[in-house]
Each structure stands twice: as C-alpha cells, then as structure tokens.
C-alpha cells in the first residue's frame, strides 16, 4: 500500500496529505468476525486405529466386532543354527590302505542316512622313491546314483620331480552317505610299475565345509533356545484411570515346525506387564505341562506342520490379567527335542525350521468402567495472535454404546494446567441406545455453544500444550457391550472468531 501512496503523490507532483508515510500500513481487522469450520470428522475405531499408528492391527470379526491384534516378532531357529556347517580345519592322515573316518557329528546323534550338501573333499599322496605309482581311492559308504565314490591318481616320480600329488577339491554334493556308527570307510590301492601294492608313506584326506541336505538318524535330547520377545500393547497407552473388562481376550501361540522329530514347548515365562510396570504371570496348565508341537514324519520330509495354541479365559487367568492396564506381553519359550524319546528316529533338512509367533487378540467386547484416556499435544498459537475471542459451536452424534465426557485442558510449558475449554467438567454425551440384538439402534446427539472470551483467549494463547481427555463408561448397560466397526462418533465444530 505504501508504494501505491507514494506513487500517487508523485503522480500529482505534490505531497500534501494527512497520511504519514513513515508509519506502517496495516489492514484494520478490528471489526472482523470470521465464521470458520474448525473440524468435522466421522470417527470409527478402525479409522482411528488406521491413523493413530498403534502397533496392533484391526480385524473385523464375522459379527462385526472389532478385534485388535498385536503380533510379536517371529522367532525362528533353522537347521543351520541347530546343526551348523562344520569347517574342515585340518587334513586327516591316512595311515593305512583301509581306514575308518569319524564323521563330524555329535556323539549323542546317530546318523543313519545323509545327503551331502555343498561339500568338497581333497586328497594328498606322497612317495619317497623314484617310481610311477597308480592310486585308486574308494569310499564305499558314499555313493551317487548307485555308484560308489571312486577316484584314481598317478604319481610319476621317476625323474625325482613329483614326489607328491594333490587332488584338488572334489565335490561330493548330493552324494548319499550311509555311515555305520557315524563312521565312513576309506580304501586305497597303490600299485607301482611292477604291479606291486604298497602303503604310501604320506596320505591325507580333508574337506572344506561339511554340510548336509538331509540327515536322518536318531537324535539326542536337546533344547532349542528360542529367543523371547516383548509385545507392546499400546491400545491403552493413553490410559489414565478406570478399567476395561474384556470379555474374551486371548494370547495365541502359533508354531511352525519342519523338523522331523518330537518337539515340546518349554515356556520359561509368559507375563503381562501393566502400564504401571507390575509383572503378572500368565497361569495355565498348558504352560506347566508343556505343549507337544506337531512335526512331520519321515515320509512327510519337507513339509511344515502347524500348531496353534490359544490361551483364553477357559484355560488361563488371561481375562483377569487384561482387566489391569496391560501394557506389554513378555515371553520366553524354548523347544525341547526328543525329550524322553531318544530312540525315535527323526530327520532334518537344510531348510528345516522352527518358528514361533505370539499374538495378543483383544476383541473390543466387554465393559468399560469410567475409562479415562488422555492425549497431549504441543500447542503453538503465536500465529493466531490476532484472535481476540471465539464462540465455538459443536455438534456431536454419538453412535457408540458408551457415555462420554470430553474436556480440553491448556497447560503451560511445565505441564501446569492454565485453563480448560469447557465448564462443568466438559461436554457430556450420552451413550447410544442398544437394541435386543446388542447392536446400537439410536445414536445420541448434542449441540452447544462455548464462549471463549478475551481473558480465556489470552490464557489459551499462552499455553504450550493441549490435553484432550475423554472419559468413557458403559455402566449404563449391565451386559458387556460390543464395539462394532460400524459405530461412529460424528463430531463437528465451528468457530466465530473475533479478531483484535
């Protein structure tokens, strides 16, 4: 505006005016009153869960009941973790033409049959005379497609320049091994130019990494140490007071097993940790007795067997535990293999695994007893300095079968409450009514106006955070109420805003 005024003065070649161009120009908003829609939303539990970034996911059950599921991390043990590849560090000396070689297996395990993985072996032979030697090596327990492993080598040291020979790496991948007492027989025949047999003064056999594709045998008892996990239940992270009685909370243990051997759970602990930090033990005969997990038979090698175990109010104290402010589920589970059955044959493959996932299932079906939730957000109203006062109009339609009271608090930087938005403790909204079928048949609604005068407005402008506190209660109804995905809270608010 100022350049415009200056231009006008130049325009007329004069500067005679009452306007002081040294002063700033400002639009007069003293009588401006804006009517602004602040927000309008249709809030359902799935919609809120979708945007509120809770850890859990929402599942709508067949009857429309909302269930919040929290899944723990997948914990897994694979065959390579249980039977790790064995590196061949040193070559084994071959002392005689027939020698038993011990397989690199645990003493408690008896290998009956194995299919070799990506494994290479090598041989070294040496002589101390000037001669031509033909060598034939055989491993009778190692065969592929019906042919026994057999290799021939030649040492030509007639000129004294080749006293040793090394075979280099020889792959035995996919060879079938049928050991006896975890041992493998090695035979060799060394013939000189005259056809005479001889024992070589220096012979060795070595391997790079011993791996199996498939192992069948009798495995000793062992414990799979499967790391535990903590599942955070953040559905009630804003929980201030009151309680929720869930009608049927569950913890589900899902196990996948492709090891072909009997496996049983050993639950070291499964606890509920409340928001107050109190640890409560989940008690169930399933935990104390152990759970036998399904496993594939030898004929089913390569398949995966699943076991689902559900801890609910019929077999545990879980309902009681979740009536508290459950914040976390912590567990540590091991797997016991062949416990008490060491003579049963079993198998494993290089892709065998044991996988456990724990899931907490909370169907929102129960009683809410003066549950108070609170959300706090930083507030910065410095850009609204021109707002002098407000008149807020709200319309709320409650489609949930629970009474609600909503209040908004304004706090200073230390969290000290400066003021609240509504008088008389907040806006009170009656519960929607429920029909015979337990489903809401009539929503309740309220409309109202709230005056934020200049004094309160100044207080609000000075606040640094805003707390929205909601109190929810279903005690109107004796029976537990289900919260369905179709229930909404329609809330809209507009403001008439007077500027300074």
């Amino acid at each position: 505006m100022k350049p415009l005024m200056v231009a006008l003065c130049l325009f007329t070649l004069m500067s005679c005016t009452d306007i002081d161009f040294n002063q700033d120009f400002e639009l007069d908003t003293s009588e401006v009153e804006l009517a602004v829609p602040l927000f309008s939303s249709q809030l359902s539990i799935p919609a809120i869960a979708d945007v509120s970034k809770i850890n859990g996911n929402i599942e709508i059950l067949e009857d429309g009941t909302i269930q919040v599921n929290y899944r723990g991390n997948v914990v897994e043990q694979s065959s390579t973790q249980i039977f790790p590849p064995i590196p061949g560090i040193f070559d084994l000396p071959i002392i005689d033409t027939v020698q038993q070689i011990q397989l690199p297996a645990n003493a408690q395990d008896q290998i009956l049959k194995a299919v070799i993985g990506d494994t290479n072996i090598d041989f070294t032979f040496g002589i101390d005379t000037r001669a031509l030697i033909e060598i034939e090596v055989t491993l009778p327990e190692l065969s592929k497609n019906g042919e026994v492993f057999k290799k021939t080598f030649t040492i030509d040291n007639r000129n004294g320049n080749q006293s040793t020979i090394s075979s280099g790496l020889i792959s035995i991948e996919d060879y079938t091994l049928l050991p006896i007492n975890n041992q493998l027989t090695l035979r060799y025949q060394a013939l000189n130019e005259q056809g005479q047999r001889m024992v070589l003064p220096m012979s060795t056999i070595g391997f790079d990494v011993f791996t199996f594709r498939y192992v069948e045998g009798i495995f000793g008892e062992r414990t799979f140490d499967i790391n535990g996990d903590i599942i955070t239940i953040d559905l009630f992270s804003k929980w201030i007071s009151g309680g929720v009685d869930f009608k049927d909370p569950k913890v589900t243990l899902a196990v996948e097993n492709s090891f072909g051997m009997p496996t049983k759970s050993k639950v070291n602990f499964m606890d509920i940790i409340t928001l107050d930090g109190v640890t409560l033990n989940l008690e169930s005969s399933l935990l104390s007795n152990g759970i036998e997990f399904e496993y594939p038979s030898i004929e089913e090698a390569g398949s995966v067997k699943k076991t689902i175990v559900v801890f609910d109010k019929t077999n545990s104290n879980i309902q009681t535990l979740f009536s508290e402010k459950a914040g976390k589920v912590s567990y540590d589970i091991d797997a016991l293999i062949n416990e008490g059955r060491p003579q049963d044959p079993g198998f494993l493959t290089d892709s065998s695994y044991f996988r456990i996932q724990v899931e907490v299932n909370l169907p929102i079906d129960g009683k809410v007893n003066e549950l108070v939730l609170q959300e706090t957000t930083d507030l910065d109203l410095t850009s609204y300095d021109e707002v002098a006062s407000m008149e807020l109009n709200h319309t709320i339609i409650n489609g949930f079968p629970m009474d609600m009271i909503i209040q908004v608090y304004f706090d200073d930087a230390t969290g000290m409450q400066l003021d609240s938005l509504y008088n008389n403790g907040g806006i009170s909204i009656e519960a929607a009514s429920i029909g015979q079928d337990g489903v809401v048949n009539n929503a309740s609604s309220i409309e109202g106006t709230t005056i934020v005068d200049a004094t309160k407005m100044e207080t609000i402008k000075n606040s640094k955070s805003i707390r929205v506190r909601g109190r929810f209660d279903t005690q109107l109804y004796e029976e537990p109420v289900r919260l369905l995905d179709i229930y909404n809270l329609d809330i809209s608010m507009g403001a008439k805003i007077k500027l300074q």
Partner: protein
Amino acid sequence: MIIVLGIWSIAGLAQVEVSSSDESFYVDLDNPTYRSTTAGFHFMLPSIGMRYYNSSFTPEDVIVSNEGKNLVTLKEVQDQLLDRNTVLFQSSLRTIGMMWHNDRISIGIGHQGRWLGSLQYTDDLASLMTFGNASLIGNPVGIGTDQDYLYYNEFHLSGAVEIGGWTIGGKAKFLVGQEFIETPSRDISINTKDGGYTIEFDNDYQINTYKVLNYRGLNDVDVAIEPWGISSPFGNNNGLAFDFGVRGPISDRLQVHASVSDMGSITWDEATTYASSEQLSYKGIDLLDYLSEDGNVDIADSLYNLLELKESTAQELSTGIPQLWKLGFTGKIGSNHQLGSEYSVLKHNKLSINSLKVFWVYDIGSNWNGMFHYSIVGNTYDNIGAAIMKRSGLFQWHLKIDNIIGLVKPLDVRYGSFNVGGSLFFD
C-alpha cells in the same frame, strides 16, 4: 444504473494541440484525424501521462492513523461502495514520434509504451474483508474479482487526409506484448452455512497471465510487474491494432469528431492459465488427518489446498487491448475561445468507464494557450482541470492536469490525471 460520463484524457485530450484557434478547431494529438495546420515536420518529444480512478473512495477515506500505524479500513466507505467497484491505473510513455504534413495529407510514425491496471471487486468482498463472513452466514455472496493488467509497446504508422473540409485519419499499430493478467471468468460465490459454519464455494474463475503472476498455491502467490521494462521492446507476443477517426465542420463555428482507437489484440506466445470451476465445500479439518499427521494440519492450509487453482499452459492466447470510443463537438466563440464537449468510453474486457468532458480553450496570445475543463469520469463528479501550452520558436510544451483539487489533496481525490510533454515543429 449509474450513468457514467466523463472524459478520456491520458493519451488523448491530455495532449492538447491547438495550432491556431482562430483558424482551426481544437484536436488532440493522438486523435487519428490530427493534422497540423501548417505544413512541415513535427517531431514529438517524449511525454508521459498517468491516470488514476477509484469509483468508490479516496485513499484518505480508507487510511486512518491509529497508534502509530496507518490503518487501512473500509468501514467508513461501505455506504459508498457500488455493487461492483473499480480501481484503475493507466499510463502511457511516448518515447518519440514524427509526422509530416502538407496541405491535405499527414503521415507519421511513433512509439509508445502503454499500461493499464485495474481491479474490480464487489461490495460483498469489501464487506467480507471488513467485517468477516460471520455477518454473511446463510447468505451466498459473490466475491470474485476482475484483475486486469496489460503492458505493451506500440509502434504505429499514421495517416490523415483532408477531403472537402472533413479529415479522415487512421493508424496501424504493431503491438508487442510485454506482460498481462486478465480474468476471463470471475465468479466466486461463498456461502457460510449455519451450525458448523461449513463454507461452500461455487467457482467459475480463471486467470490468464504472462509473466505477472507466479502462483505456487493460494498462500504462495507472487505478483511481479516490470512496468518500465521497455529495454526489450520486441518479443514473441505480437499483435495488430487500428485507429479510425473522422472530424469535420457541421457549421462555420461547430465541428464534430468521432473516433475509435485500439481495435486489435495481442497474441501471447505462451500464457499460463489458472482456473477453478467447481463447487466445493469446506467443513474444517478432518481429525483423522490431524491424527495421521501428528497434529501438523493447519486449517488455513487445508482450505487453501481445497481451493487450489489448476494450472495449464495456453499457446497462442489472444487478448484484446483497451479500446477508446469518442464523440465530441467543438464550437468557436469569437476568435480566441472554443467551447466543446466530448463523450468517451474506455472498454477493456469487463471494464467500462464512461466519461463526459466540457472544456473551454482560450488563445491567450504570445503563443500561449490555456484550457479549463470539467469532467465527469465514471461516478466522480468533482474533476476540474486545467491545461497550458506554450510555443517558443520550434519548441512547444504542454502540461495538463484533470483534477486541480488533487494538487492540494492528492490522496483525497477519486480521479486524477496529468500529462506533460513537448514537440518540435519545423513548419
């Protein structure tokens, strides 16, 4: 209906040329029929003209000093506002021109830079800005504005011929567009509903621009005008325009003249178009958006996003230039006086300003000429102006002001204009 009468004077009457009032009638320099009464060359030196018009208030009406600040308020002028109000700035800068005259024919060439900027707004928009929309709840109001700005260079060839006492003249103009903004569609209706104050928009709005408007969103708009960028008088935005005029005596002492100027257009090589043609409803922010954005949702931003204009590029976009239509009469009184009147209309897009002027031209003697005039321009009625012209040897200069009150209180007038320039005559 407001009858708007007045005079168009920036490039017209402002440049008063009265060659010899005892022999000829007054005619302004830019009239297509202009001819010097003496043969020879006529070099037009640089001249400048500027004009300001506000249909509804003066700057001092709306600027109040308050606590060390100049408060701009429309409170006190609400009753003065028209249904549709106009603010206009117009100017021209003649860099050079040359004419040759003999006893029957005149031909000439010349160049001018020409500018027009206008804003037309509704009284409802003014009310909205002054009192907010709370007072308009339940009443749909139109708040669409017309913005026009045009800057172009004009290179013209002119010719006039006198036949039987009547002079017929015309100009052919080659136009080079520099920058523009126009509003071919201007309808924006806003309706604030009762209750939650849902705001409904019914838009049929379009802005075309070349260079002027840099739009990155409703809350991020730059308007960049380079009004004196005549250093590059040529470019890719070209057009043609024509002036036609005729004047002649209807008696020994009475002359009539009529003309139409600037019938033409400029084709812009590549213009940008911003448009919104839809019905929109704003109910405030969605709390779900608020939750998903961790509270980083602003009401103003969400409203701006809703009202976002769609940008497109228009190749070879043609726009008109401001036209001027005139009809006037001039009568001689004695040997030194002329009385006349002229009715004119300025038209550009949806802008239309009518003017009526009555004037008295007096040959003072010693090569001095003076003129007093009264103008009704649009709906302004208090415009008393004066002009003076002096010839000294080859050199002639002139100065004209359309509103003398503006000399004393320049910010307390709704209309004003001035023109100053000179010429060299080799006759």
